[in-house]
């Protein structure tokens, strides 16, 4: 086992629509993380970060300070934050630096994400015939899952209901108005079986972390959280991803299953040890399926778990305590680090109205995106 990496500072901005640029949001998150750690920018020895569509992270040095540190841009779709985090961890473990910043940010306009078939290696007909629509994939994946494992539309609605409830407890969340399961079911079908309020929206936001070696952490403020593992992977053959003209027959593979198992193995822990977790919830169905893909339950068990309140704050496995993507929106580059920020707050006991009771010790985060990339972390206090 490599040496420990500690998270000594965490910062985020409000998510949603913003007048600020993506870079301004990134600066605010970085400064919040530095303040949280009680250090100046000049103490940071290396940085990794990026956005999907809001600019280059390394240009932030013009405002943060031209200290000469190595600053590597990361552009890895939905795993941008997770990949920046893995790079930061490796920088510490390799001895390259003892205090490292990871930052993710983004700003997407309303109705963003305009995929073009040629960018995905597909014929123009997939665009002209109306199949370049991401919500179709989410609908079709959960549709089959519900058929195979007895999940009902009401469970999808309950997942979103919880997201808005938790968003209401999170000052930085975007969607803070509670919505009932009945309202969510009646909000209009987007891609069957998913309705409008079951989806997250593209938005703006930023999150940043200060990571340290154990020696460097001793000189910092605040209780550090140990990053037990951080793993990023891409899909193997046989997975079901967005914009696929075909998928192979037989049992599907899952990058989320692969990467979560690797993260737990590296941490020497299992899903049963986790007290609080963040799972990618691009829409309600994703949270349902990721519960099983990340090992927290058997396929189909979600129907009972969700109805019983097990995934709520105060349940046996609180999931997406800050409202997840559904309540925070999806600034692609920022989501993975927002998840870690939230778990850090929970493990430090600083999560305010949304604090998981009984002093949670072990946390887990999982981010997933197109086309089949995922990053997971295991954290402990």
């Amino acid at each position, binding site marked *: 086992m490599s040496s420990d990496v500690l998270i000594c500072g965490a910062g985020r901005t409000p998510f949603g629509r913003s007048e600020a640029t993506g870079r301004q949001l990134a600066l605010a998150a970085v400064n919040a993380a530095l303040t949280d750690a009680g250090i100046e920018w000049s103490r940071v020895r290396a940085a990794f970060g990026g956005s999907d569509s809001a600019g280059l992270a390394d240009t932030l040095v013009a405002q943060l300070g031209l200290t000469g540190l190595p600053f590597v841009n990361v552009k890895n779709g939905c795993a941008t934050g997770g990949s920046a985090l893995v790079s930061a961890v490796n920088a510490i473990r390799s001895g390259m630096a003892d205090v490292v910043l990871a930052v993710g940010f983004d700003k997407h306009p309303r109705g963003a994400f305009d995929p073009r078939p040629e960018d995905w290696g597909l014929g123009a007909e997939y665009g*002209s015939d109306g*199949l370049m629509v991401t919500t179709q994939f989410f609908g079709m994946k959960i549709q089959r899952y519900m058929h195979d494992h007895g999940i009902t539309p009401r469970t999808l609605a309950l997942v979103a209901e919880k997201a808005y409830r938790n968003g209401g407890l999170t000052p930085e969340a975007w969607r803070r108005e509670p919505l009932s399961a009945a309202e969510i079911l009646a909000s209009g*079908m987007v*891609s069957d079986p998913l309705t409008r309020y079951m989806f997250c929206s593209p938005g703006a936001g930023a999150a940043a972390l200060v990571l340290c070696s154990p020696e460097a952490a001793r000189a910092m403020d605040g209780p550090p959280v140990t990053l037990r593992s951080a793993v990023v992977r891409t899909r193997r053959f046989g997975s079901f991803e967005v914009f696929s003209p*075909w*998928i*192979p027959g037989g049992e599907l593979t899952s990058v989320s299953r692969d990467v979560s198992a690797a993260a737990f193995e590296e941490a020497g822990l299992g899903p049963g040890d986790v007290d609080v977790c963040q799972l990618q919830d691009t829409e309600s169905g994703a949270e349902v399926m990721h519960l099983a893909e990340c090992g927290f339950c058997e396929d189909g068990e979600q129907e009972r778990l969700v109805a019983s309140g097990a995934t709520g704050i105060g349940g046996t496995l609180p999931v997406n305590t800050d409202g997840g993507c559904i309540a925070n929106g999806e600034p692609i580059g920022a989501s993975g680090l927002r998840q870690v920020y939230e778990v850090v707050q929970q493990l430090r006991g600083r999560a305010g109205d949304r604090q998981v009771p009984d002093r949670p010790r072990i946390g887990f985060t999982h981010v997933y995106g197109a086309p089949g990339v995922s990053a997971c972390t295991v954290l402990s206090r």
Partner: protein
Amino acid sequence: MAGALIRMATDPRSQAAAGPRAAPVLKATGHRPVLQGARCSGCSVTVYPADDACPRCGGPADPVALQGTGTLWTWTVQRYEPKSPPYEPPPGGFEPFALGYVELADDVRVAAVLDVDDLDDVRIGMALSVTAGPGVPRARPTTLSEEGS
């Protein structure tokens, strides 16, 4: 955005998509064009559309005509009009349409638009006949005569 609009309008592939196309991947069997895929001789993976290389092992893949009938593996309905470009609504304007993956006997699931009379009739497991372009594969409920053939 304006740049993207201009780019799409002048993309030769975009123009091709608007008009009737000579589809090189089609082969006529009887009166109905079948899907032309490829199969890896090494690991028996079948892909659609045809590709030169196997996505699992990287080895060479040979052209193969796919079975024209199968069952619906999963589906959804496109309830709102997709963004144009790249979407090109039919002459009568956008109407919600069903789409899904049809599981064929070749151990491959192919994305297709589902031509059904009533969107409420779509069910996982329903028997479908799939035909090739112009455009993406299209599937419609299998008739009794096709089931016998």
